[in-house]
């Protein structure tokens, strides 16, 4: 049982880690671009905005299991196979990109336009504004968005598991559902619950400590009821 579990865990970890990495790397510029190209944005381009927006919307609302099947030939082209953990990373990443991009868009939109103006008045160009204002100022929200994305991708990875991706979802279905090994299934559930809580906690903590350093200019990331006590000013500076 032990080797089964540890292998499943490492498969899930690798699927989620790689797909998150790709989703963040591609979703961040996409989300920023959505804000910049919007009406009144720094790179206003209504056509580009509509196109990107539409692609993101469709990608986001597509049920993951369908996306996965639909992307099979693309997956084969990229990885050479449609089965296994590596193959699962492709649809996971592609599903994660629009998901994260929308969250980035919301986070970046919250940045006070006055800051953008201040940097324009200093002679900064659009790239400077993105690098020094939009992304750093939205960072607490971006971290919260990443947490949400990781958790969503863990959910997707379980689905990917059922079609040969491996990982914890695959384990739970094969042993828990098909072979009635209830104990193993509950262990899987427990592991997932613990992992998700830990990720959420770490994400919240990081977002919050950045946020309380930044004060009221940044949007407040969603905080969970889990931790009732506000962080003290002292440990804020420590983190900062």
């Amino acid at each position, binding site marked *: 049982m032990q080797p089964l579990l540890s292998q499943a865990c490492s498969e899930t970890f690798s699927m989620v880690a790689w797909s998150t990495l790709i989703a963040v790397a591609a979703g961040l510029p996409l989300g920023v671009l959505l804000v910049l190209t919007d009406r009144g944005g720094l790179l206003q381009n209504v056509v580009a905005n509509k196109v990107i927006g539409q692609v993101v919307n469709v990608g986001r609302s597509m049920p993951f299991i369908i996306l996965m099947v639909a992307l099979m030939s693309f997956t084969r082209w990229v990885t050479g196979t449609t089965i296994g953990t590596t193959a699962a990373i492709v649809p996971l990443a592609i599903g994660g990109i629009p998901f994260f991009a929308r969250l980035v868009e919301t986070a970046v939109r919250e940045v006070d336009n006055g*800051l953008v103006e*201040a940097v324009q*008045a200093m002679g*900064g160009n659009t790239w400077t504004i993105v690098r020094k204002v939009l992304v750093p*100022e939205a960072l607490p929200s971006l971290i919260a968005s990443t947490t949400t994305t990781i958790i969503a991708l863990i959910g997707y990875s379980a689905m990917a598991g059922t079609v040969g991706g491996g990982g914890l979802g695959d384990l739970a279905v094969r042993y828990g559902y098909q072979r009635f090994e209830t104990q193993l299934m509950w262990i899987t559930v427990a592991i997932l619950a613990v992992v998700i809580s830990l990720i959420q906690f770490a994400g919240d903590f990081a977002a919050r400590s950045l946020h309380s*350093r*930044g004060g*009221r*200019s940044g949007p407040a990331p969603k905080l969970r009821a889990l931790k009732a006590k506000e962080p003290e000013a002292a440990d804020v500076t420590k983190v900062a």
Partner: protein
Amino acid sequence: MHAPVPGHTHARALDSDGIPVITTSGLTKVYRSRGRDVTALDGVDLHVREGEVYGVIGQSGAGKSSLIRCVNLLERPTSGTVSVAGQDLTALAGRGPRAGKELRRARSRIGMVFQHFNLLSSRTVQDNVELPLEILGTSGRERSRKALELLDLVGLADKAKAYPAQLSGGQKQRVGIARALAGDPKVLLSDEATSALDPETTRSILQLLRDLNRQLGLTVLLITHEMDVVKSVCDSAALMEKGRIVESGTVSELLATPGSELAAALFPVGGEATGADRTVLDVTFHGEAATQPVISQLSRTYNIDISILGAAIDTVGGLQIGRMRIELPGRYEDNVVPIGFLREQGLQIDVVGQEPVLVKEGAK
């Protein structure tokens, strides 16, 4: 009076033909929203001379914010030209909506402070001040040296490592000012810099602007809706209404202009006539005249009873000035001689409720 030399100490008094640092001509800004045109600026000609503090005052919606934002082209004027320090910014801007390299370079030499400070919350105070230098491509060591020097100048040397969220409003604005000065600007634009501050803090920020103006020879263009701001720091002022400048000049010129709305607002005296057959005069004293006992002379010479309806002495733009609203018995026609007497004493007389034409000769 001499024209101030760039980089030298500030010359307190300015003559009318100092070197213009900011000039706008025929500046017009029309906003289109839902098919309707809203004219925010309607042919504004502004001349700000080197080394002066110039205040533009007006109610909200008068277009002053559009005006200051057009000066560094954060807002593209619909027509008209803007030049700052001899450089025609409207020509640099080109056609496109984005700022080209040359415009950005010109902007880096124009400091700007904002009503809501606009400090980056993700950066420390020092890093905020370093930001313009990063944009200019200054090396790391030079940046931090300059930032600390500027923080010292605004009195916040001990807050370099703090985050903006840990500062009070006044301290944030000091950081904003330090940041605006990082690029060694000749011109500082202040967009309602004190409007979000309490009166005490407002005074200290204005004092700081005044000091910087004197020490660095910095030209300051500020917009405000508070008359007190103009009163305490400005050498010159302009009044904006509905996108136009309706009055402008040095503060002393304005105070010496009969019927000037700005002067009346800068230095209001209250009081209504007590009856129909009374003449109400606003008497403005400045300089020499302020020390003469003119009112008692008037009373003795013409044997008339004078009631004082309101009076104030104040410092406006660094000048001692007094204003008094007095009431003489009888109509204007009956008081032509005493009024003439007052004017002979070098006082500025505005007859309240009379056409300004009647007092034209008093404008001197």
